């Protein structure tokens, strides 16, 4: 298993390098000049060139690329923003926990709410509860997050005055953003859980368990659910990973200074260091999340664990054989 972990971690390196080069190339070729945005309307061409030179924007592609790669991966320096002179890494690391909270809470809520919802729908297939759960899930997926965010603000903040309408001053400032953000995920996870459960409930081993005399409830949660969950875990994992970089709408509506809003603004402003640094960091995080999900599979499904360890066994057998030959 350790061998597998090390191998996977090593494989992350070319992936992240690839992402960095790709995003650099994309930003390089995207039209739009950051210097004009920095210096404003009234600058002369001479001043424009001077600023461009200072920022290193007049150098050829490969020079800039290697400089960027060296700076990011060897010096671990993500640079400073063109627009407000802040250190990119400092900004990212200050903002990341806020986005991470929203992403984590959404993940948790999905585990707590969506999975039981899906299980209920599956066990009452065709019945009223099933239809009810499906309708709820579809509504949750279809409602646009910005609209529901505004509705929450109007209701809970303006009319009822229970919660603040923006900002991150208190722990309860996070309630509305998390609630608005997780709806779509709730719906899709519930639907997926339901379809997985429906498949698993018809399995032979469930019949065996029933024939053994295991009560229905235990069959559901102890026998069926672990098998049904594997695709759902993938889903949750990728959702969490992309939520780390992407809760832009929620962050804008609720004024949460997180990563999503920062990155989107930077892209509009062609703030290259921020975009490049941010995307690279997010790529690293996302890869780690995916890797974690793969590890979780191994803990849930022993067949996958055996697969990961497979090559190791072969190696052991070889050494055994060799040992016997000399014995």
């Amino acid at each position, binding site marked *: 298993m350790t061998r597998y972990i090390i191998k996977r971690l090593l494989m992350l390196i070319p992936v992240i390098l690839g992402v960095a080069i790709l995003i650099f190339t994309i930003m390089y070729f995207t039209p739009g000049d950051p210097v004009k945005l920095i210096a404003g309307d009234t600058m002369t061409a001479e001043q424009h060139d001077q600023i461009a030179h200072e920022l290193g924007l007049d150098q050829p592609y490969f020079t800039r690329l290697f400089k960027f790669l060296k700076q990011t991966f060897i010096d671990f320096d993500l640079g400073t923003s063109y627009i407000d002179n802040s250190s990119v890494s400092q900004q990212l690391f200050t903002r990341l926990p806020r986005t991470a909270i929203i992403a984590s809470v959404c993940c948790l809520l999905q585990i707590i709410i969506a999975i039981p919802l899906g299980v209920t729908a599956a066990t009452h297939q*065709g019945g009223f509860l099933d239809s009810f759960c499906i309708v709820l899930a579809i509504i949750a997926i279809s409602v646009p997050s910005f609209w529901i965010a505004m509705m929450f603000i109007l209701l809970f903040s303006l009319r009822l005055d229970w919660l603040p309408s923006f900002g991150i001053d208190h722990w309860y400032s996070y309630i509305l953003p998390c609630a608005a953000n997780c709806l779509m995920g709730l719906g899709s996870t519930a639907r997926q859980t339901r379809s997985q459960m429906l498949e698993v409930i018809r*399995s*032979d*081993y469930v*019949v*065996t*368990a*029933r*024939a*053994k*005399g*295991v*009560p*229905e409830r235990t069959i559901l949660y102890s*026998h069926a659910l*672990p*098998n049904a969950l594997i695709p759902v875990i993938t889903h949750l994992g990728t959702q969490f990973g992309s939520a780390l970089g992407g809760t832009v709408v929620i962050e804008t509506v609720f004024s949460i200074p997180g990563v999503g809003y920062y990155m989107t603004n930077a892209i509009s402003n062609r703030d290259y260091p921020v975009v490049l640094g941010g995307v690279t960091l997010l790529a690293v995080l996302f890869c780690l999340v995916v890797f974690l999900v793969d590890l979780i599979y191994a803990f*849930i*499904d*022993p*067949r996958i664990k*055996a697969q990961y360890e497979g090559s190791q066994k072969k190696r052991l057998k070889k050494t055994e054989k060799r040992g016997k030959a000399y014995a």
Partner: protein
Amino acid sequence: MENANQKSGRLLSVQNLSVQYEANNEVVKAVNGVSFDLNYGEALGLVGETGAGKTTIAKAILRILPDPPAKLTGGKILLDGENLLDVPADKMPEIRGQRISMVFQDPMTALNPVKRVGWQIAEGIRLHEHCSKAEANERAKEILKLVGISEDRFREYPHQFSGGMKQRVVIAIALACNPDLLIADEPTSALDVTIQAQVLEMMGELQKAKNSALILITHDFGVVAKSCDKVGVVYAGEIIEFGTIRQVFEEPKHPYTKGLFEAIPSMSLDVDRLSPIRGLPPDPTNLPSGCKFAPRCKYRTERCRQAVDEHDFGDGHRCRCCMYSEEHGEGGK
């Protein structure tokens, strides 16, 4: 090894059991008025073609038929005098696994792939015997030994076992709580012949040792001959012939049974063609009236299309055929 079951006498009495499946506006009449008795220590073989309804009978006894399509439309299942069909649904789990157990056909999918084998065996023990985890594990290990699997494999997962070993594990699970009745649904169909013999032998030994009853569902006469005391021939959801092995094998009464025996290729004779029973089993959504076998029977008469009579040849050998009624007349068209 647990003390052998000291009970004796009538264990199971199935009376006029009928089951149908309702799906897509069609009604599939799977089981139509099946009756048989089974005593402690006896082994009954239920033979028949695929689709005859044997598995449905077995699942009906345990009440694990899939509920939306399947419906029990009549009959009684008496276990030690108590009608299982009257037992409330939430009390059935106490009976399943403890008094009646089932071994299924396909060992490859019958075990939960994410749980350890030992755990799966011990689960049943914990549930029914209400003992501690450690005790249950001990007993599970013993059962494993009993079915011929090393104790060291207690913590392994199903994917680490071969087909035959998996089937043994399934049997271990079924026998873990010393059930009075073991129903084995084609337990060796998915295994190769050598393993088949081993598994059957083991089942037989365990059955005798614990004095439990066995219902062995199969389409293989050889297996029945080896392992069972009684045999019931199932056709189109009915038991058309019933008796001891000796009775049915040496003096088959029903034309279908006769046809089955004639279809077996002989090792000694040298024949050019096999002689199967012509025709196919009837469509269960559209069963013929009267005798279900009549369309294929070379002895049929008009009477066969109207009704079918039950005949008792003594000593428990019975048969459902009009041939033996006075009204039948000579065979022919």
